């Protein structure tokens, strides 16, 4: 190895390709070959980069192609219909869309304030030695596969809610006019509310870690200036840090929303898979991803399969839009931070 180092790099490169660099004529040939290899490698990497684009287009194309029979049969009414009857082959996406939106909304309702407060704690209040361990713990929480949340939700969280929170809600809030029907009916344990809460736990780490990163990127000078004026810690966080970091935080929230909308396993275990729209949040429902996960392998008939693929297409389009907005906002804040 030492002897080879003293020689020129081109020679080493040539030798490692199993060629001898003794004859000048063959040396030119080898250099030609290197040039060719260079161009080939460049094109290879370019092709791989383009493959990523092709991949996304292929996903979109195959979903559209697969959902054509269902869209032909039901038209735009597919989006608005509440029916889901595999026997008569009559399908509508509304209950699944409703469940997806409601569970994600519940998740955001809880995860956003809690996530922001944790980020506030981590960046402004937490003693320095504790920041790293808590930060790591929250990132580990983000790495736990969703099926773990699902199995925990099914065996631990849903029975717990059935015995404690849900009877309590039915007895108290259930009797309040206007919002009462939201908490009516028997306590099933599983249902929209349970799924939403599990989702909240799942997306909490995403919101926390992104908000923490953008909070940390706020220039110290700004914070010191505010402290210098006599602001309290909370006032600095509320009036200086959060406005400065707003775009990034919204980006993080949209990213978490994208996850929540498309999440399958954590929801499928606890949603109950009932194709109906109930007034009560405690009732079983379904989401787009849970419907596909539960029914796709058992779907008989082209129309049934196609209806499920059409659901997948709707999900993909919704999450694509949400994620695109998220990435755009995060890109903006990245540029500003530099």
């Amino acid at each position, binding site marked *: 190895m030492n002897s080879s180092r003293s020689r020129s790099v*081109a020679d080493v490169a040539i030798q490692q390709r199993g060629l001898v660099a003794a004859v000048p004529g063959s040396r030119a040939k080898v250099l030609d070959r290197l040039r060719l290899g260079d161009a080939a490698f460049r094109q290879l990497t370019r092709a*791989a980069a383009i493959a990523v684009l092709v991949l996304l287009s292929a996903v979109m194309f195959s979903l559209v192609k697969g959902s054509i029979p269902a869209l032909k049969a039901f038209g735009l009414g597919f989006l608005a219909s509440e029916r889901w009857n595999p026997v008569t082959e009559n399908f509508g996406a509304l209950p699944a869309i409703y469940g997806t939106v409601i569970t994600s909304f519940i998740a955001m309702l809880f995860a956003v304030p809690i996530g922001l407060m944790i980020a506030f704690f981590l960046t402004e209040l937490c003693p320095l030695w504790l920041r790293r361990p808590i930060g790591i713990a929250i990132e580990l929480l983000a790495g736990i596969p969703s099926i773990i949340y699902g199995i925990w939700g099914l065996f631990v969280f849903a029975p717990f809610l059935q015995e404690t929170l849900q009877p309590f809600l039915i007895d108290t809030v259930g009797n309040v006019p206007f919002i009462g029907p939201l908490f009516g009916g028997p306590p099933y344990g599983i249902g929209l509310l349970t799924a939403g809460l599990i989702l909240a736990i799942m997306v909490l780490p995403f919101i926390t870690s992104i908000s923490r990163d953008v909070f940390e990127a706020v220039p110290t000078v700004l914070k010191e200036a505010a402290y210098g004026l006599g602001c309290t810690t909370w006032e600095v966080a509320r009036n200086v840090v959060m406005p400065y970091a707003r775009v990034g935080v919204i980006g993080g929230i949209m990213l978490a929303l994208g996850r929540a909308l498309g999440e399958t396993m954590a929801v499928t275990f606890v949603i109950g898979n009932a194709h109906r729209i109930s007034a009560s949040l405690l009732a079983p429902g379904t989401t787009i991803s849970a419907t596909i996960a539960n029914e796709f392998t058992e779907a008989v008939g082209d129309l049934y399969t196609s209806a499920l693929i059409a659901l997948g297409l709707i999900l993909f389009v919704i999450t694509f839009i949400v994620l695109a907005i998220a990435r755009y906002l995060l890109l903006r804040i990245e540029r500003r931070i530099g």
Partner: protein
Amino acid sequence: MSEMLPQSRYRGRRRRNATATALALAATAIGLGWLVLILGALLWQGFSGLSVAVFTEMTPPPGSAGGLLNPIFGSLILTVLAVAIGTPIGILAGTYMAEYGRYDVLTTVVRFINDILLSAPSIVVGLFIYEVMVAPMGHFSGLAGGVALAVLVIPVVVRTTEDMLTLVPNALREAATSIGLPRSLTITRICYRAARAGMLTGVLLAVARISGETAPLLFTSLNNQFWSTNLNAPIASLPVVIFQFALSPYKDWQALAWTGALIITLAVLALSITARALVATGKQS
């Protein structure tokens, strides 16, 4: 009265600050509390079912004892397959973005699309592979499952490869070019070596990501109750078995599901901690 006002206003601000601090503490306690609750339940339920039989016996029919050997093996095969397919594509694409076209329009577009693929719903990937592989082939197969997971590996590897190659100092590239090294060799011999730890981290993170993925496997590799190494046939995998067993009414199946969940979680945690350590040592050297 007018002298009291600033005093009470100050007290109000102090009180609001104290309330916010308390809320932040409570939020952190809640966040970490869930982690403890989930891991606690997992350890409690998972360890009680953990035994040698789990690693040596096949999945049982309901009502009899058994293990998780075939799904563990299946998951390993699918993971290896996904990494073997996804990593080269991911690394090459990341290489183009960091080395050749750092300021290209193509790179900007690919980066944007890749970031979306990174968090796209994995069940949609399952549908996609069903459409392009399972339906034309006419049957579910381990190969389709591996490809589905590879689709999830690619964006993770692209992202980390690009980030890590961007961190390689330009002086290294200039030095290599100045002694006459062609571009492709500069990249493969110099840049890859400098970014090795980071790129390996990307692969580890990708493995962590796919090892718990269930949704894309449900209708690609399906499931198999028996020992199978045939990639052209349905193959068992841990997540799908957990899904099936946890939703079954049989107690011993549910216990096995918990044990499987524990195995996956430990594997994922070990992978992420290794990746983290790799990044830390990479930064030091």
